[in-house]
């Protein structure tokens, strides 16, 4: 009997595993994206101060735009992920759950 449920599981798990891997690829990529932006920002702060001093518009320097920009990018990235996960990902997951009869 154990073998049978295992076989069932394997079939269901294939779709699940694929979806799980896709989510993991997305979340790990996004994490890497945020971490690299941050590290790049610190490196620019440390090694290219002059660049940040450049005035862009009406007194506001590039450095201020970049700093505030990263804060906003961080927020938008969470928004994009939450939108994808709460709509696309969750409904795909629900479909897999339904085909396996509520438990996988």
């Amino acid at each position, binding site marked *: 009997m154990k073998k049978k449920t295992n076989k069932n599981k394997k079939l269901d*798990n294939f779709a*699940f595993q694929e979806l*799980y891997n896709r*989510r*993991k690829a997305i*979340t*790990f990529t*996004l*994490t890497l994206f*945020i*971490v690299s*932006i*941050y*590290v790049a*920002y*610190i*490196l620019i*702060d*440390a*090694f290219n*101060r002059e660049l*940040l*001093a450049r005035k862009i*518009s*009406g*007194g*506001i*320097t590039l*450095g*201020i735009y970049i*700093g*505030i920009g*990263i*804060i*906003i990018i*961080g*927020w938008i*990235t*969470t*928004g994009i*992920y*939450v939108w994808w*996960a*709460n709509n696309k990902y*969750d409904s795909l*997951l629900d479909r897999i*759950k339904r085909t396996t009869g509520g438990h*996988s």
Partner: protein
Amino acid sequence: MSTTSLGQVNSISISFFFIFVAATLFITYWASKKSHTTSEFYAAGHGISGFQNGLALSGDFMSAASFLGIAGMVALSGYDGLIYSVGWLVGWPVVLFLIAEPLRNLGKYTYADVVAYRLSKRPVRSAAAVGSIVTVLFYLLAQMVGAGTLIKLVFGLPYEVAIILVGSIMLAYVLFGGMLATTWVQIIKAALLLGGATVLAIWTLYHYGFHFGNLINEAQIQYGIDFLLPGGLVKNPLDTISLGLALMFGTAGLPHILMRFYTVPNSKEARKSVFYATGFIGFFYILTFILGFGAAVIVGKAAIQTIDQGGNMAALLLAEVLGGQVFLGYLAAVAFATILAVVAGLTLAGASAVSHDLYAGVFKQGIINEKKELRVAKISTLSLGIVAIVLGILFKGQNIAFMVGLAFAIAASANFPALLLSIYWKKFTTQGAVASMITGLGLAIILIFLSPTIWVDVLHHSRALFPLKNPGLFSMAGSFLVGILVSRFTHDLQAEEKFAEETVRSCIGGV
């Protein structure tokens, strides 16, 4: 600016504060009727919405230190304050991407639930509980000492009285109202703080024709171009990156933040709550940047430093100059409320590590009587509250600025690596988890002791034995390395077998 009413007994701020305390105690009374089970006490019965939890998370994160400290830092060193803020913020996307969902789906009340999911419960829970408690204690101590100093400065109350007052009101929230009261205190405080800071920022910009650039030009005229550029903070980029990583991954390992994800009903709401929290916190940091510049230009660096060397009073002084006694009174009361709310959240997280992880998980090995566990949770809360009051008084006048940084470094090194590996790495073993947590905790504490922050600034040696101010980079790397190496040399068959099940559960919940 020559006169300020800061430091005198201010009847307006005391009135505002009384209104806040009365309102929150009323909420606590309401919450106490819904706080009879462990699920209600630890997790507000999982009945908080994503938006509410987002506000509460931002409330947990916007401590008095970040409100007053970052505004002060911008006021005194200009651009450097923004670099700090960016580091504090970018941890939130990481929490969302790596931790929030599996945490919500795999655990019940604490992050130790997740680390121990497929590993041997007793050793893992013990180590994770120690990590939680140490993180909470350092954070709590920093908040208490900050609270005493701040309240003395703002209200003119004696330091000890302020500490006992904060400790007692906070205990009332947590003991009687549990997580539900704590969450609502956090929500109210976050709304008051965001509202107050927004009004102050708009008021500041109003004086510059709503052109942020004009304010910046004025700052440049007064303090030179260096005020608009990275300065002391990035003299040593490795140090800044180390600090940044500690802030980033520490956020994903702070017990009182992680515990909040259990207050929402499911992973959908958990995700939403991070989105809202990141938005509120980011908005708040942009506001504090404006306030810092406003304070530097309108109040002046010299005037700020005569009140407090560290610049912590910058935002309050700005409020007084622009809005007079009433606005100062309001913001001072909000700063007080902020401390109360953060301390309450921390105490609840620390108490749950004692009662849920140590008592129920380790001592009773999971065979629990809910009534008993709840009683132990309340006794732990009370004990932790008393410890916080006593430590707060003992550390009066000590240089404790490093303690929040240390709490973050410990969270990033002791808690975060084990949590991450337990969720995503099949071959992670019990021995690996325990070794990783102990290494992270030990390294973070030893390295910060040998670093300039304690070795030079507190112990007054001439040269630090470890060059970086924040050990985050090395203690976290050490913790990951030891966790991975030990797991490679040990076998945990049960853990490997349960990995597939854990993965499924981490997605669909139902634990």
